[in-house]
């Protein structure tokens, strides 16, 4: 009963056999494609560790059925940096110590990238906290996470004069 789906994963369009229709996007990424950056913390949309961008929007990969996403564009943590050049959000997470154990970190970072693209929070820390509240961090790195998101967003706005490829910048202004 294997069917093929087509996904563009981190910029590469690929045909992916799906041996089991029950496979979620998260399990496909982790167990099928061995893109293990997205983590399974709850598998029920309650922790955010599996956050990836689907067609540019942050979602919980654990609650998306892979077959239903046939044709979609997926961006995971593995596709965020350009070679050795980290994405501003990644840089900022390191600089602000926005993680400890690191398990929730790929989800936090992808959520932050999605948040910046959504351009709803502006530079209001309270709105950033609210918008990042779908990503649990049991180590308690929230202070650094919020600082990192705000700083990265600023950096991306400053760089949005064309130094970076389109789609990288937040539309926030």
């Amino acid at each position, binding site marked *: 009963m294997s069917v093929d789906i087509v996904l563009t994963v981190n910029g590469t369009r690929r045909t992916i056999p799906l041996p089991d229709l029950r496979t979620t996007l998260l399990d496909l990424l982790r167990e099928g494609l061995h893109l293990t950056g997205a983590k399974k*913390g709850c598998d029920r949309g309650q922790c955010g560790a599996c956050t990836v961008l689907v067609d540019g929007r942050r979602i919980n990969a654990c609650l998306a059925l892979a077959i239903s996403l046939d044709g979609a564009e997926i961006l995971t943590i593995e596709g965020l940096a350009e070679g050795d050049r*980290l994405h501003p959000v990644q840089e900022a997470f390191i600089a602000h110590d926005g993680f400890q154990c690191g398990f929730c970190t790929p989800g936090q970072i992808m959520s932050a990238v999605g948040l910046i693209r959504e351009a709803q929070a502006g530079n209001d820390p309270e709105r950033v906290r609210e918008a990042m509240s779908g990503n*649990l961090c049991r180590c308690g790195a929230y202070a650094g996470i919020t600082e990192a998101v705000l700083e990265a967003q600023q950096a991306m706005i400053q760089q949005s004069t064309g130094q970076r490829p389109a789609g990288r910048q937040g539309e926030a202004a």
Partner: protein
Amino acid sequence: MPETAPRPIRHGSSIGQPLTRRDGILKVTGAAAYAADHHPPGMLYAVMAVSRIARGRVTHLDVAAAKSHPGVVAVMTPQNKPALARHPDEKTDGFTFRLDLLQDDRVRYANQPVAVVIAETLEAATEGAALLDPAYEAETPAVGLDSSEPFTPPAIGVGDPADMATGDVESGLAAASRRIEATYETPAQYHNAMEPHAVVATWDGDTLDLDMPSQGLAMAQARIAGLFGIAPSDIHIRSPFLGGGFGSKGMIAGPQVLGIMAARLVGRPVKLVMSRPQMFGPVGHRAPTRQNLRLGAAEDGGLTALDHETLTATSTFDDFIEPSGGVSHTLYAAPALATRHRAVRLDTGTPLFMRAPGEASGSVALEGAIDEMAEACGMDPLAFRLRNYAETEPASGKPFSSKALRECYARGAEAFGWSKRPLAPGRMRTPDGLLVGWGVGTATFPALMFQAEARAVLTATGEAAVAIGAIDMGQGAWTALAQIAAEELGLSIEAIDFRIGSSDLPNGGIAGGSAHTATAGTAIKAAAADAIAQLTALATQDRRSPLYGAGNAGVIARGGRLVRRDDETRSEAFAEILARAGRDAVEGKGAAGPDAAREHYAMHAHGAVFAEVTVDPDLGQIRTTRLVGAFAAGRIINPRLVRSQYYGGMIWGVSFALHEQAVMDPRTGRPMNANLAEYHVPVNADVPALEAILVEEEDPHVNPLGIKGVGEIGVTGSAGAIVNAIWHATGRRVRTLPVTLDKLL
């Protein structure tokens, strides 16, 4: 095999520098591989079926249905499980906990594993486990602290006596001009590290290869060796990154052993990852407590007596007793002091160490009661704490090896603005009419020391390879321990090939008790000193060396060179010394453990946490709007990482005060909120403003590095400060944790 090769860092390197995490790039790019991220060739997936009753027997498993599901390879039950060399209930020492490894059909708690389904895909294993649809013969479970007769445990925590007394508490209470008695209750809490327990197990004959998060590699190795009847050295565990531990990964958990058994059964590599609901059972928890505190004080606010009785719970089949009274042994100068611990047996999984075990639950009760006594005395809660400041440890009478708590109080109060606090509750409001309250709590945690070994090899290139089976569960061992190695070897951190997180390295001990940096760091220091001493001997005994004749004490290692103390112009590079001696390397070995100073001093980190809460006066909803903690914990290796540890602990304090509780169905003994939607831990919006102040403290006694440990202290003090702030906002003393809004209506 190198599990990780942290890339070069970008800042300074020695002790005290705020380096960013050396594993940072791996973690922000998704390249840091946690146990469940591994896929050895031929790997199968194992999924546990767990019990839906808390007590009784499994009478039937529909193995045929599970096996008939496409992709299912095997079903492991008590009937066909691989034989074990040692019964899982056999206790060989105090750190051996009984495990549920399908030994029989008994069910002794909800979510106990009752079978394992192994399949070609995760989806098939998951549905296979559901198809087992166990039938039970259920018995009435013991649920709650009132469900059975309390007993006096033979020991609490890791072996302390259940009862302790100094002075005569009853006389002290009788002599007091003010007395309070308060009963605080804390709920069962589950660690819920973001990474569920996992294992990827591969057998090759009688050798075993494991990717498995573990806070203590050698202990896990020994436990597995005993269970499977193989040599510890035939077990290789890789655990370079843990997705949080908080105590629940200190001992190997039963489900991890089941994954190893499953791999044995099918003869192929197996990955077993627990589901989040399954985490509420077989991997430990913080037991509920009911703590009764009786305090007496004289007219001037000086305590005359402190009595702290704890009723807690353990499982029906093993003992771990939450030592809540311990904080009362050290914090306040009561001339008469008594603590007692009693326990009941419940049909739960065995409780375990959970971040600040005993201290966290004990602190919230003690800090609440102290606040109540301050109120009874009409005193400012901070002034009351200072009035009862312990100059020596009350329980033992020993001097403190160091104690900068006064500075913590002062600096925290200053940063918080405590002096503007009205004494009476209910006096502060936001412009919107929300109630505002300020509270304080004292933080404390013992400065422990365990055992560890390390290796430091100086190589012909003038660089070093430092290895220790230490653990980074988020506290920053990859960075802080490397900083210690760099400092002690006189090398830049970039010149060190630093390895941790693997059981084939020297035994790094356990990452727990907030003692890992102190213990592993001391072992590294000793290993480095040994290597430098050997190198020094090569140089100072060689006439061709500019260091000839300087003697071992006459040189120091700095910048990759040995330098004469009495003449810094005379030095020689490590590489030159080795080359001339015709040596490829010198290998230093070091060990660490508790020393005799522990007999003479009480050793604790301290802190003061100040909390501001906002409470809706009509609706009861609460938010911790500000937390300021000032902590003194000896020498700080990396202030950036330490601040993060304090923040994390303080957020655990928020969680303890306002959120966390396992809700047990009183009839079935099952946790009804075994998920992260309903078992609440704080989200980002719950902690708007945090400040952690690192108060300087030098401790010449605690260990050679002067480190006290910072991983757990932040939890203590914080929860009490928040509960006290809620009182200050509302005038309501809520003594049943967590403080949910319904308790304020």
